[in-house]
């Protein structure tokens, strides 16, 4: 309901990013191939390889949890790309249907040319630069909580956003000043009910330590704080 994944800004940003990526993927190889002796099919292969590299890089950036299936599918997709290009450009298929498979030898010649790899690398690097920068900016400005827990250890109180959920709230019966207590009933009831004992434990959810609210669990529930 908070329109996090599909709001107007998100769509506009995605459109702008894809526009930029398309331009990069065309104009960088165009600049390299301009007035060169390389042909149409090598140009096509360069752009294809650059696209595969940048999509793979984006997937690597987006993957949060690396299981063995993730890693395997990544390598498999790269391997399949190269294998299928070589197969589709093989002389055997060309002999079978020359008008359909008219790229014979293109991939062997092109992949042996270092210019293709260098162009694909720089194009992929340029294309993922905005998304990499966006991730880095969010990381720098909003460091994630997991970082804090690991670096400061579990023994100290976690700080930062968790500080907002402090135990001290207005109107809290456990946190009255002594002046306020002296105007009313005093400390007697507080001490005998043992409420103050819970303050020594690590902060828990508020409701669990509130003895005033009646428990609504079954009678077979384990003993609560007592």
């Amino acid at each position, binding site marked *: 309901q908070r329109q996090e994944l599909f709001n107007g800004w998100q769509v506009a940003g995605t459109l702008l990013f894809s526009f930029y990526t398309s331009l990069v993927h065309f104009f960088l190889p165009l600049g*390299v191939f*301009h007035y060169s002796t390389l042909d*149409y099919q090598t140009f096509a292969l360069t752009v294809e390889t650059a696209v595969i590299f940048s999509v793979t890089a984006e997937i690597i950036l987006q993957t949060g949890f690396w299981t063995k299936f993730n890693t395997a599918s990544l390598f498999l997709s790269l391997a399949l790309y190269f294998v299928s290009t070589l197969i589709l450009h093989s002389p055997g298929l060309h002999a079978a249907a020359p008008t359909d498979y008219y790229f014979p030898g293109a991939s062997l010649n092109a992949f042996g040319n270092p210019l293709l790899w260098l162009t694909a690398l720089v194009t992929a690097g340029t294309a993922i*630069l905005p998304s990499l920068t966006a991730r880095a900016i969010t990381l720098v*400005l909003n*460091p994630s909580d997991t970082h804090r827990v690991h670096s400061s250890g579990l023994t100290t109180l976690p700080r930062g956003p968790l500080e907002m959920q402090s135990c001290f709230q207005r109107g809290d019966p456990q946190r009255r000043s002594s002046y306020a207590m002296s105007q009313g009933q005093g400390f007697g009831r507080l001490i005998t009910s043992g409420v103050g004992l819970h303050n020594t434990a690590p902060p828990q959810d508020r409701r669990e330590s509130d003895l005033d609210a009646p428990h609504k669990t079954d009678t077979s529930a384990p003993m609560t704080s007592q």
Partner: protein
Amino acid sequence: MMASSYNAKEEDGHLSGTPGPGVVGADTSKKPDNTAFKQQRLPAWQPILTAGTVLPAFFAIGVIFIPIGIGLYVTSNNIREFEIDYTGLEASSPCFNCSQSYSWNNTKPCTCSVSFTLDQAFEGNVFMYYGLSNFYQNHRRYVKSRDDRQLNGDTSALKDPSKECEPYRKNVKPIAPCGAIANSLFNDTLALYISSNGTQIEIPLSKKGIAWWTDKHVKFRNPGGNNSNLAPVFKDTTKPVNWAKPVYELDTDPENNGFINEDFIVWMRTAALPTFRKLYRIIQKKGMTPTLPRGNYTLLITYNYPVHSFEGRKRMILSTISWMGGKNPFLGIAYITVGSVCFFLGVVLFIIHHKYGNRGNSSDIPS
């Protein structure tokens, strides 16, 4: 510091439900299997990204790309290249007469010669290219206008070319090779002479090895097998409209005649962009002496190819070769630019991180 936790991906495999009314037995339940894969309990590596990891990545990319770019730029600058535009549109150009007096029924070819000087010697193999500009070999209709089965030596396609070749398919008899790409074959001839002691010595130009090996031996085959006499094989066909000679008279060498003529193959490999160059000849290196020493040279052109109608230009380029091909400063500049942009972004992010990122670590208690 990057802390990676060996995190077990857990999710409560909450039962999709007790069996509905009337269904009895555990074998019909919809519970997924209790394997690690289906219950999403696979061991996984979760990289925990912090500012300390990501910022060095930016600097690393910058530091890797910039030297590569510098290396490429320096390599490209060491390649010798020389170019002459011989279109002949200006009145002062030697080829002006040839460019103006073009007509299709020229029986006597027009020749012109251009003199030039090489200030630096060219070492190693020197490659001679012809370059065209404003010639869209990548136009879709043009690229489709060929018959690959005919070029592969299929005799049935020789007599009956593909429909894609229209309107260059039949000219009373079927055209071999058909199509617009073959019809527009570049037919200027270039010859190079060096002036030494007042005489012009011709420089030997090699026409072997200019096409891809796979093209010459796999993709393009002459019909009728390895017949060295090609005229009877092509007897029921005619030459393309704009050619002076039929395809079986392209060269006297039977290895370079017919469809496997290397100049023809190089032309048929369509270029990517409207400004392109194609390999024409190779000047082999000879021992320790420079292949093209410093001095005065003359280029003798047989001006057959009209480019005036589409405002194109024709050039001859002499170039040495390195591991990255010809002269290409763009790639080096691209690497240097991307590397410096990355480095600059890294610096900016570092500044942001220093000024704003440490806000959460301060010890004042919010009131």
